[in-house]
């Protein structure tokens, strides 16, 4: 691993709360960005300034809750961490939250944008697999990154319909700090999962990871993206950040991807992930959203090449006053493309969900299939779910369906289990677990399934 640890002092502008052009520039200098990257960062700042702050009347943001934002009280960055000797040498506050029980091809742990621990299996390195932190990659792999970095989620984001303001993607473009770079060379198979763990440990500083993943022609990768954060101190504003991931799956390649968002309950943040698929490529993507006070997740799949296929599955479990604002896009840009999306949630206490999913079939994307389903369980009558599954179809030789269902735990199911001797609480718990099983069952790493099952189970609580 060739990660360079920057030991330079944090510049004074970055110690002040609030976001400014000077701070954006200082961050680029401090992280030693090459010039071409600094130019992109500058675009990011311009876009951030130009794009109006979304509000209750902005299309796509009506159901968001941005009251947690306190931008002038957040520092753009914080000091970089020391390198730990091994995973176990990392602070327990993090290690006890991360399941390290299974074998990995590589692990990169970033704390507040800096690498705290990172390893890659040698076999992979010898095969030409690159796994490093973003800043090192920007300096050393310009050949690979110039065509991919900030291309899929650019500073001035044009996500296509429906128009999204792109405000917080711009903020990330101006203040990105940390992130991973994964490259799998053509026809190389990486089945041991490669893991990136992003931990925001300074509640006063914003977190802005930006990652790029390239799975080259005919290659295969299993990749886990994990997000954690500390609690905000009593009376302080929510821990805040905006992460971006750009994933490129080239012709004939396959990515098995798992995103787990387990931010602390006092974190408000944005996570924008886009996958683009080359000809005959395939992605199996599971999004697990459990943490955060208010979180907005954007998961987009661009079916760019002919014959591509994407399975996008997600689950969210809301408790207390958690707000999940989930946006998905299945953008069919070529003929014979298939997408299948299933998002399942359960909400208890006063949790809220706003789900907005779109299947977009471009003209000429004949022979395509798009499926979309959103199923929400309301476990308490104080919980609330809004669901907007949308279809926009510009070709007639397609087959698309979507469905949405919201309601309490099905009494028929509970009764049947009770007739087999399970007490009501256990029967209900089982039905709720069953609700999530079709999503959890699709997680590419067997061991991780049980970890997620346990995490969900803890949240079901006493029924």
């Amino acid at each position: 691993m060739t990660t360079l640890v920057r030991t330079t002092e944090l510049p004074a502008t970055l110690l002040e709360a609030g976001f400014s052009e000077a701070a954006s520039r200082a961050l680029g200098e401090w992280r030693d960005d090459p010039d071409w990257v600094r130019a992109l960062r500058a675009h990011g700042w311009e876009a951030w300034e130009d794009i109006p702050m979304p509000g209750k009347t902005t299309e796509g943001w009506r159901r968001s809750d941005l009251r947690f934002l306190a931008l002038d009280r957040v520092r753009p960055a914080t000091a970089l961490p020391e390198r730990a000797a091994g995973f176990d040498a990392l602070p327990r506050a993090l290690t006890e939250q991360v399941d390290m029980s299974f074998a990995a091809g590589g692990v990169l742990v970033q704390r507040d944008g800096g690498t705290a621990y990172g390893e890659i299996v040698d076999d992979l390195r010898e095969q030409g697999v690159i796994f490093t932190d973003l800043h090192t990659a920007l300096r050393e792999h310009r050949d690979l990154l110039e065509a991919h970095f900030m291309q899929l989620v650019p500073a001035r984001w044009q996500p296509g319909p429906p128009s999204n303001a792109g405000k917080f993607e711009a903020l990330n473009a101006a203040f990105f700090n940390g992130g991973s770079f994964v490259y799998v060379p053509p026809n190389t198979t990486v089945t041991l999962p490669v893991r990136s763990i992003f931990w925001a440990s300074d509640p006063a500083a914003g977190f802005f990871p930006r990652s790029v993943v390239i799975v080259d022609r005919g290659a295969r990768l299993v990749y886990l993206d994990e997000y954690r954060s500390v609690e905000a101190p009593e009376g302080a504003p929510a821990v805040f950040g905006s992460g971006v991931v750009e994933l490129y799956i080239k012709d004939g390649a396959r990515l098995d991807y798992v995103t787990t968002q387990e931010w602390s309950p006092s974190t408000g943040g944005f996570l924008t992930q886009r996958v683009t698929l080359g000809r005959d490529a395939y992605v199996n993507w599971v999004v697990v959203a459990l943490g955060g006070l208010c979180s907005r997740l954007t998961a987009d799949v661009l079916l760019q090449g002919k014959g591509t296929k994407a399975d996008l599955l997600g689950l969210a479990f809301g408790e207390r006053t958690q707000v999940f604002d989930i946006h998905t896009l299945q953008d069919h840009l070529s003929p014979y493309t298939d997408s299948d999306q299933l998002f399942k949630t359960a909400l208890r206490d006063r949790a809220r969900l706003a789900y907005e999913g779109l299947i977009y079939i471009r003209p000429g994307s004949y022979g395509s299939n798009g499926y979309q389903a959103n199923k929400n369980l309301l476990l308490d009558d104080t919980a609330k779910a809004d669901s907007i599954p949308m279809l926009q179809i510009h070709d007639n030789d397609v087959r698309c369906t979507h469905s949405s269902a919201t309601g309490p735990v099905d009494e028929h199911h509970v009764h049947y289990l009770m007739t087999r001797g399970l007490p009501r609480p256990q029967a209900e718990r089982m039905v709720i677990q069953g609700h999530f099983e079709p999503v959890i069952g699709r997680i590419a790493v067997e061991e991780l399934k049980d970890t997620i099952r346990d995490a969900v189970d803890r949240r079901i609580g006493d029924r």
Partner: protein
Amino acid sequence: MATTIDIRELPPAVSVDPNRERMLREAEKELPLEYRAGWHDELKPIFTTGKGLDRDIVETISKMKGELEWMTEIRVKAYEHFLERKLPAWGADLAQINFDDIYYYIKPTEAQGKTWEEVPEEIKNTFDKLGIPEAERKFLAGVSAQYESEVVYHSIREDLEKQGVIFTDMDSGLREHPEIVKKYFGKVIPYKDNKLAALNTAVWSGGSFVYVPKGVHVQIPLQAYFRINAKNAGQFERTLIIAEEGSFVHYIEGCTAPIWSEDSLHSAVVELIAMKDATIRYTTVQNWSNNVYNLVTKRAIAYEGATVAWIDGNLGSKVTMKYPSIYLLGKGAKAEIVSAAFANSGQTQDAGGKVWHCAPETTSTITSKSVTKGTGRAEFRGWIKIYKGCRDSVSAMRCDAMLLDKECYSGTTPVIEVDEEKVALGHEATVSKVGEEELFYLMSRGLTEREAITQIVNGFIEPFTKELPMEYAVELNKLIALQMDAAVG
């Protein structure tokens, strides 16, 4: 225990005649297949305010009608709001509407015809061209045919009068029953609702006023025909239906319009109030000519145990934006919205439905079917909101789109908001083209491709047509056949 319900298992609010299928077939044989719109008669308007709108014109309209002061005041206030208010930023493109290039008031004849004999000959001719058969005219409970902006012919069957049912045009309703109109006018749809509701409130003319007393079942559907027939004539009819406790009424409006080269605007407001245990069915088959902007606000209130059904078919117009909505305010109230849209080349059908569940044990279903052809655009917008405390409410929304050609566009935007746990709510949507296997099967039985597609399309929108009275169902199937004949896009 929460009940789950399958939208397909819900019976229609009015049971379907078992002989219906057979009667449909026979009726189809008898009626000539001809396009019913496309003619206009040379009629000289008696009075018009000229193109455009200002405060004076609004006051003049009110004065011409001899209205009471309160109505003049509402008109003026609504006009002021119309000026301030922007057009909706979403939905179809309305930028081409030039509000200064529209006649807001045209009075075609001096007096209202009391009997059929008194109706002017030109207008009778128009009805002939519209193909309303003699027998059907007799069958109609009361014909309230809106021609230009005034109701010219009106008759109420005696038994309706005896039952105390009021079925008249809105202007007469205001004159003869000011106390009822004042109580309900603009209460369901206030002029501040949207720009076009404000415009309608300012310049409305004509429309129907229906009042059904407690416990009265109006056996035969009340029908009204609307038609635009003047260059750039705006139609701003206003309809108000009040069904008192335990009563039943079915109101049907059918619209056909001649084709004009310049854009025309139809902007109606329809308010329905269903008191405790009352039922209102409101059926529309809209076939405006392909230059009309059809921007209509329709809303109903249903109290305890009441049922409101909007049966809404959109075939014509250049642009339609219409989302019939129902507020379920009382326990056990029911809402049903069944709509069908056919968008051919150059047309945009932006339609849907809204239901607000504001009381426990309320039920709603929204069923939408859209067919697009050529460069047609169909957009479905559904909105179901279940407020907290509306326990044991059930809602099912379903929308299916069929795209016949490559350049079609179909959009589906259902919004589902649930604030209450003990409810069952589902939404399903499909988009498809004509199934190749179905097509092959029908063609292997000797049908031409066009015939086969027509059959499949008619089958596809059958959940809508089965809600229509037979003569409308026949007409609809024919219009669809005619749409199929139109040049392939």
